[in-house]
């Protein structure tokens, strides 16, 4: 591996920490204490964490140091990790950034969390995100927004904004995010770090609080592609507890990072990039593609004729699934329950149909959900409920699934045949980070932030965002590459090669440099 690169880089990486701890150059406890200190000094400005588990983390780190022989060879030994607060952690509050789960403590670990800890990683806290992962700016957190480390008045992107901000601010070299419509890649792009959404099924969803089950996927956020590959090695692989997890063999993804991209063909959907993309973003993407071309990759024009329908299709499928996935938050078994007798319907709540509506139970349900969920979550539950309703199912849900198939076919065509490409390049986000509060009153404008990211979820394909420049105002820009199904190796090889030739990932944001 390119150890020269690691030593010249500013700040720590997963690999450097892992190697230092393994060589006993630093103890896991020292590493952990340093991460906790960074949280203490930086997080009041960022609000990247919902929960910090200092004692638990120090105890785990101490155990690694004490029983070192047992842990030394684990792939992430001593690496501090931040986990998005929508993944279950046994005994540690897991809120999905919702009032509904503000005090919810799961009795079990998500598979990805379990695998991280088994690999020697030390979880330092749970990161802030949009409520139930619904949003594009992290402003939908019930606990307040995350601030972008590059400009505190800007959004970090969403929904894994806390995870991206934590990595960008060098608090932890690695964080887990989840991506339903761009929720790993878009914040990674806006915070200047690497975010990978693996192929659907590559990482178990067991223990991930569901937003849209056919789209959700867990993935790593790190500063280097190499670090993301190290993390993917650990969390990927079939899980008997998730029937949608894939049986595909898991290669060593770091072994694929050869730097050799000669002959690789990169598709560029130029038609798609003509409208609505910030000029500085397009320029950075084109320059990035030239960099890859100069390393030996070939740029090819591709057509994705159905890509323009991706946003409407996404918001039909995702909201339909969400309306059902979020039905369990009813105040009966766990989480928030409106006190009996509380009888002030939230504005806009209409009491219409069934008999339960008029009963004490019906009132409890209505009040619990009216007050436990934030406005965006309620908006999507209502949209999704409508989409699945008798008489509308065919026109909306079924039609959306059909168009989803057409979008997948576009990609399959691009990835096959004589003109087959190995990856398709796009910006991750059409613009750099916007200001906090700028789009909150315009949900449609907010939804358009996902225009380039949702297709990878609708198709299940792997996609990565890698830093590729800065706008004039100093805000990061990200290049997105989408790969073949289960070819994260090929995808990461391209992204890593690009990082070898560029320095965009090295500068630290002002909040770190002071």
């Amino acid at each position, binding site marked *: 591996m390119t150890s020269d690169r690691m030593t010249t880089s500013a700040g720590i990486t997963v690999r450097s920490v892992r190697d230092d701890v393994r060589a006993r150059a630093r103890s896991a406890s020292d590493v952990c204490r340093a991460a906790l200190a960074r949280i203490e000094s930086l997080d009041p400005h960022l609000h990247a964490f919902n929960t910090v588990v200092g004692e638990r983390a120090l105890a785990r780190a101490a155990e690694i140091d004490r029983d070192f022989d047992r842990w030394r060879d684990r792939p992430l030994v001593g690496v501090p990790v931040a986990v998005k607060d929508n993944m279950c952690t046994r005994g540690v509050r897991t809120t999905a950034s919702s009032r509904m789960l503000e005090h919810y403590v799961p*009795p079990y670990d998500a598979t990805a969390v379990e695998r991280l800890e088994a690999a020697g990683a030390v979880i330092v806290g749970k990161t802030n995100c949009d409520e139930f992962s619904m949003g594009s700016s992290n402003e939908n957190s019930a606990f307040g927004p995350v601030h972008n480390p590059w400009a505190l008045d800007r959004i970090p992107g969403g929904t894994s904004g806390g995870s991206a901000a934590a990595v960008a601010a060098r608090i932890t070299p690695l964080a887990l995010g989840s991506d339903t419509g761009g929720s790993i890649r878009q914040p990674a792009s806006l915070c200047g770090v690497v975010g990978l959404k693996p192929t659907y099924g590559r990482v178990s*969803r067991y223990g991930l609080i569901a937003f849209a*089950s056919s789209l959700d996927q867990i993935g790593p956020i790190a500063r280097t592609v190499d670090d993301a590959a190290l993390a993917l090695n650990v969390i990927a692989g079939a899980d*008997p*507890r998730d029937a949608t997890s894939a049986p595909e063999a898991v290669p060593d993804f770091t072994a694929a990072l050869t730097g050799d991209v000669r002959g690789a063909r990169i598709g560029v959907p130029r038609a798609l990039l003509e409208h609505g993309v910030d000029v500085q973003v397009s320029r950075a993407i084109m320059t990035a593609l030239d960099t890859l071309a100069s390393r030996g990759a070939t740029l090819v024009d591709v057509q994705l004729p159905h890509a323009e329908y991706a946003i409407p299709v996404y918001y039909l499928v995702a909201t339909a699934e969400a309306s*059902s996935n979020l*039905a369990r938050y009813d105040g009966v*078994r766990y989480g928030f329950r409106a006190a009996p007798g509380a009888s002030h319907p939230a504005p806009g709540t209409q009491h219409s149909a*069934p008999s339960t509506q008029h009963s004490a139970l019906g009132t409890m349900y209505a009040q619990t959900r009216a007050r436990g969920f934030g406005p965006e979550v309620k908006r999507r539950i209502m949209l999704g409920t409508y989409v699945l*309703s008798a008489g509308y199912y065919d026109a909306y849900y079924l039609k959306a699934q059909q168009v989803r198939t057409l979008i997948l076919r576009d990609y399959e065509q691009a990835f096959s045949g004589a003109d087959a490409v190995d990856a398709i390049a796009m910006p991750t986000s059409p613009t750099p980070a916007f200001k906090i509060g700028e789009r909150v009153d315009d949900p449609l404008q907010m939804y358009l932030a996902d225009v380039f990211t949702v297709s990878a979820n609708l198709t299940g394909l792997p996609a990565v965002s890698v830093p590729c420049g800065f706008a004039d105002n100093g805000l990061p820009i990200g290049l997105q590459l989408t790969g073949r199904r289960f070819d994260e190796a090929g995808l990461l090889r391209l992204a890593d090669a690009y990082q070898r030739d560029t320095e965009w990932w090295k500068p630290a944001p002002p909040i770190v440099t002071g």
Partner: protein
Amino acid sequence: MEYEAVIGLEIHAQLLTATKIFCGCSAAFGAEPNTHICPTCLGLPGALPVLNRAAVDHAIRAALALGCTVHEGSIFARKNYFYPDLPKGYQISQYEQPLATQGAVDLDGVPGPRRVGITRVHLEEDAGKSVHEGFVDSDRKTYVDYNRSGVPLIEIVTEPDLRSAGDAAAFFTRLRALLVWLGVNDGNMEEGSLRCDANVSVRPAGATALGTKAEVKNLNSFRFLEQALEYEIDRQIAELRDGGRIVQETRLWDAAAGRTISMRSKEEAHDYRYFPDPDLPAVEVDAERLSRIRAAMPELPDARRRRFVDSLALPEYDAAQLTQSLAVAEYFERAVAAGAAPKMAANWIMGELARALKDAGADAATSPLAPEQLAGLIALIEKGTISGSIAKSVFEKMFASGRSADEIVASESLTQISDESQIAALVADVLAKHPDPVAQYRAGKTTTFGFLVGQVMKAAGGKANPKRVNDLLKRALEP
């Protein structure tokens, strides 16, 4: 105007798997509340379902026995509605592509054979149980037990082919026996492992169009099923005769009041918003799995009944009785295989054995008396070693002790006395002791014969061959 009823049934049957349909929790009934639970069957955030293959195998067994086509691919769907005993806010069921469709059950009974179409058989999960009674604060609170949440069910839907409450009860009886026979369901309606709802409508006799239907729920015993359907049919006919009309609605059988009551109207009906469950891949059943399951299935009751009549020469009635449960049929076959004459074995199994098992609270599968032992007893009767009446007491002793017939007969010297000289001596003795009845008989009052037979049998300790006693006594009384 004459009316006829049109009835279709929806039956929910819990499958006899060790674990639940989407998690590893025990599916057993009767445990302490909320002890068979885990993140998945409690619907905790992030938990996911994983399909239990054994549940699919059971469902396939039932579908094949009902003559259905089992589909290569079927889809789980979410049925969305809110209820406290439904932890996820949706039930995982099957909707547009069920496991199996288009079967039929032949109902041969009074009045004449009838074919009841099976629309579909699909897999789903059971809900938990709301407990509204039995707690000190039950007037204010409802408790929920999630042990049942996720227990595997099949739903069996029939075509509207039934024409009376009696038809429906006969069909349901047949269906229950079949499911129990297959080992798919325990047939226990009291514990709710077998449940039935009915769709009922009436129409002018001879009409082909269907009337407006009401769904009747809570038919949780054979008695309630029949009573509720009779009530509902009469109610609908009376309504029409009075110039009213039937409204589409869901009605509940109130057993205490003996009537059905309206639960919710069509307008209040749920919109379940079914859609394919993205957490579960399609259920795939290939030809190999299907033929493996088919090959391992027991011979079905109808086939077995025909075989008992055709090759063992049993009367139709006996064959039908012996094929009401797999355990009884197996018991009978083992007795016959051990050498018992089929008709005698049938008589003993339907008579003495059934009574003894019932008294002991056992069944044919758990009988303390093995079918081979029963065959041993029958052999002794056929050889004339013991009499029929002695055989009954030997049977009691066998049943109670588990000893063989041979052992009991030998150790208690119960062997029948057939020796003519021995019996002749007893007869002579009795005639000498009872001169009056003898004289009366000879004077033509032949009713005293029975008394004299009784005296001889008594003197023989019940062991004398009754036919010999008759013959020798008659000969001795002749002038």
